[in-house]
């Protein structure tokens, strides 16, 4: 009997957590994204920066699978973001809080827990309400919440199913101090546990404290992409001055 041959070494390149290959996105004839190539390895935090209208939100929404790229491909751990199993890996915080005003905080989180197929949606909801400091108002209707409480609930919703990839569209904008502190703590914990984060932001200081990589978008194109260096953290405007439109 011949001994089994040793397995050949895996020479395939490691699968990136988020892969963006030659992506174009058109609104009518207007190209909102032009041949964008980016990738975020597992455990990385990619900060998308750029002026208003640069294409950050369009890119994040395309990564999240809300819209299809006109050309090119988006992959999450090598699979399409529109596949159900891939969507289970993603958590998204957009401009809206994505919770229902007519439902209570607990009902909202339990609803999303059920949609994500969590084994015990109510227990997960209660856990995240506690982690975001909302356990005392769990039965209150969201329409009665203050803005800060609503934002913390939005954060709890996005983290509820323990996603491996977090897509955050200007997550620090309009947050109160407590919500910023909660979000920064959760994002640090997420990075420490190997999760991947892609966030668009105007708040360079808050974002660069977390970012491992930075990409500057300018009129739908990647003007700069590289690791987040000490130089960038100490002078966040540098990348704009050098690669932006001035």
């Amino acid at each position, binding site marked *: 009997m011949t001994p089994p041959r040793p397995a050949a070494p895996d020479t395939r390149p490691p699968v990136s957590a988020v892969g963006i290959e030659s992506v174009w996105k058109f609104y009518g004839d207007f190209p909102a994204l032009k041949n964008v190539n980016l990738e975020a390895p597992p455990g990385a935090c990619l900060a998308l920066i750029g002026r208003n209208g640069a294409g950050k939100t369009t890119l994040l929404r395309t990564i999240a699978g809300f819209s299809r790229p006109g050309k090119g491909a988006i992959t999450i751990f090598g699979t399409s973001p529109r596949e159900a199993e891939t969507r289970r890996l993603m958590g998204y915080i957009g*401009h809206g809080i*994505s919770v*229902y005003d*007519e439902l209570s905080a607990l009902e909202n989180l339990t609803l999303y827990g*059920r*949609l994500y197929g969590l084994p015990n949606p109510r227990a997960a909801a209660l856990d995240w309400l506690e982690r975001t400091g909302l356990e005392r108002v769990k039965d209150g209707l969201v329409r009665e919440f203050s803005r800060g409480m609503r934002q913390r609930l939005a954060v709890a*919703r996005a983290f509820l199913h323990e996603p491996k990839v977090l897509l955050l569209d200007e997550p620090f904008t309009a947050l109160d101090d407590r919500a910023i502190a909660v979000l920064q703590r959760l994002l640090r914990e997420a990075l420490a546990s190997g999760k991947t984060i892609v966030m668009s932001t105007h708040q360079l200081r808050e974002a660069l404290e977390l970012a491992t990589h930075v990409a500057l978008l300018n009129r739908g194109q990647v003007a700069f992409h590289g690791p987040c260096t000490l130089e960038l953290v100490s002078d966040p405007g540098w990348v704009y001055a050098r690669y932006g439109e001035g």
Partner: protein
Amino acid sequence: MAFFRQVFVIMAKDLRAEFRTKEAINASLSFALVVLLLFSFAFDPDEETIRAISGGLLWIVFAFAGTLLLNRSFARELNNDCLDALISAPIPGSALFLGKAFANFLLVLAVELVALPLFGIFYNVHWTSQFWQLMLVIVLTTWGMTVTGTIFSALTVNIRLREVMLPILNFPILIPALLGAMQLTSSLVAGKPITADNDSWLKMLIGFDVMYTSVSVFLVEIVLVS
């Protein structure tokens, strides 16, 4: 089983949200009652005329009152960008669509079942002699109306004039179903059961429901993800 559970979760969420605010159901019910009342004042038809026009009158009221409910179906998700969260959840578009369609169906049916006895009172019509056959026609037509209305509600959700666009798109599609429902309802209210003479309308209603449910389930993912 997971698929049906997802459908149920979406349906329960929509019904719970609607019963908390009662925005759409109150508007729809009020509209149906006002129109029925206005018609009863505007015309003074004899018993024969009422029986002849009952199907048309009822289904015009049901269709417009139903549109008020259907308009809110996906528009409700725009508040706080909840539609994004639903689209990014790991559920098929068809489960989202069917959950919403079932919730809409129950709401529209509830409005119809309140309006129907009031129609009988306002117009002094004994409409219950073919009760179960009438219920069958109402259920089949309401499902058809709900399915097309829900898919067009998804299609028009990001349009500024969606309240106008939904009936403009939906009613032409509904013409065959409404024609059948009007014919059958008029004869059932007059006490005539469905026979071989007019059961082709019933078959057409069933065909309409099957066809538009299948097409909508197939297309909803394309409609939702631009």
